[in-house]
């Protein structure tokens, strides 16, 4: 029998620990944000976003790296999203739990645990050299696509899994084919979950550095095609800071990066809420 005193004590200790955990998390986050924004915000005036870097990034702005970041992320999502969602649909709707589906799932789980530099090395050897695509948006984008694929597959699979079996039964009983059932009933219901996975992946793509340096290069020249090498904002930040080119510009890039991620997430949330409200 536990005495009342012990129970109250446990209760209070737990409360303190849980509050500490929450406050520490928020505190650390605030500290990082504050540090980067305090150093970086003064650098951010419109010209910083509209000019391309000059003199290795010591002067000028970061326009070409913003373009590079967007291009790379776009390529990654364009390849990974259909492939990932397609795989999830295959695993959930087109096959029973078999050896093949277990192998695919095991493979994606392994892939999810591989460090990004390994993807970079693979991308360098396979896309850059073997396929002779050079350091380019395409090489980098495909490498990132491979990196984010497991996330997209598993979030899409989770989203599809939560859809009631009855929806499928209804659709089939009304004469729907499997494909019609997928496109008209399952995907519309699963979109919020799938979308969340894609947004997570966008964040990872924007923030990735190691894999990108090895596959997309670090050119500051404004890209003109998918085969142009580029430098993303994260890579720019890394090089500016690492090679001691300009801490000021590095912090400016960092602040811009944080703002970008913030804007992407806010916009995504807004879109998602609108979609959900519209449907139900």
């Amino acid at each position, binding site marked *: 029998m536990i005495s009342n005193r012990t129970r109250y004590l446990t209760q209070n200790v737990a409360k303190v620990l849980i509050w500490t955990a929450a406050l520490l998390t928020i505190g650390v986050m605030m500290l990082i944000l504050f540090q980067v924004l305090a150093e970086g915000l003064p650098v951010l005036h419109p010209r910083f976003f509209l000019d391309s870097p000059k003199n290795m990034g010591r002067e000028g702005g970061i326009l070409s790296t913003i373009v590079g970041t967007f291009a790379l992320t776009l390529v990654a999502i364009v390849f990974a999203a259909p492939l990932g969602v397609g795989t999830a649909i295959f695993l959930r709707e087109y096959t*029973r739990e078999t050896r093949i589906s277990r192998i695919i799932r095991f493979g994606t789980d392994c892939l999810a645990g591989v460090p990004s530099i390994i993807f970079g090395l693979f991308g360098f050897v396979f896309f850059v050299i073997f396929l002779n695509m050079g350091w380019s948006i395409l090489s980098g984008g495909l490498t990132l696509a491979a990196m984010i694929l497991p996330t997209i597959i598993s979030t899409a699979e989770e989203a599809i899994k939560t859809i009631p079996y009855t929806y*499928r039964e*209804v659709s089939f*009983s009304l*004469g729907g084919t499997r494909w019609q059932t997928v496109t008209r009933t399952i995907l*519309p219901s699963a979109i919020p979950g799938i979308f969340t996975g894609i947004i997570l992946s966008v964040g990872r793509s924007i923030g990735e550095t190691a894999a990108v340096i090895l596959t997309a290069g670090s050119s500051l020249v404004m890209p003109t095609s998918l085969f142009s090498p580029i430098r993303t904002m994260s890579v720019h930040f890394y090089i500016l800071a690492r090679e001691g080119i300009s801490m000021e510009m590095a912090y400016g890039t960092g602040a811009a990066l944080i703002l970008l991620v913030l804007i992407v997430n806010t916009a995504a949330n807004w879109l998602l809420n609108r979609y959900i409200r519209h*449907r*139900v």
Partner: protein
Amino acid sequence: MSEQRKILIEDFSFYYDSFQALRDINLKIGAKEIFAIFGPARSGKTTLLKSLNRLTDLIFGGRHSGAIFLDDLNIYDPKVNLTQLRRRVGMVFDLPTPLPMSIFDNVAYGPRLKGSIPKRRLSEIVEKALRSAVLWEEVKDRLHTSALRLSGGQQQRLCIARILALEPEVLLFDEPCSGLDPISTASIEETLTQLKKEYTIVLVPHNIQQASRVADRAAFFLNGEMVEEGPVFQIFTRPRDKRTEDYVTGKFG
């Protein structure tokens, strides 16, 4: 039985992997009658219903023997077009199953699967279906709001309307009132009697009383076997089999 036969079930058995859910069922169901299939849980009622439009095909590890004819069509013939079969034989499930979309889109779901339909024509189909399911008056002003906001009874009538929009010949009802209150149940039963004028109805009733209220003929199922079948009046007042008598008088079940 009405003079015209609609469904003929011949030596039909169904297995889930090694479990035999139906044993050598032989049954005739007439056109435009309400035929009730009743019995305790796990007696194979739902399996038989789902066999009638081959929804059982969705079950991994399910297999059958014997044959089922719809008019003269052997529905298990490999050449049968499943989409067409399921449009001729519609099913309403035990719990209301509105899809997460508007009332209009729910009813239009089936017709739209056939291909694009002019908007005017689609509106007519939807209105007619909702009227036949006795739901039109309640929802005509909010066709484009979510079907999930309807009450349970309304949702179930929506599911009926959704089937009717395909102009089927046979309607399968699997305990359509199990989640509903007595008033909603009465409205569904009223709808059933209306529908009988045009459709053949196979009903797994919610309870024995419901079978006696709405059905013309009935069959008693037990452990996958059909114990007996006949006019409702006879089966509930003078059952031939001891097991049927025990069940309808409430000795077990």
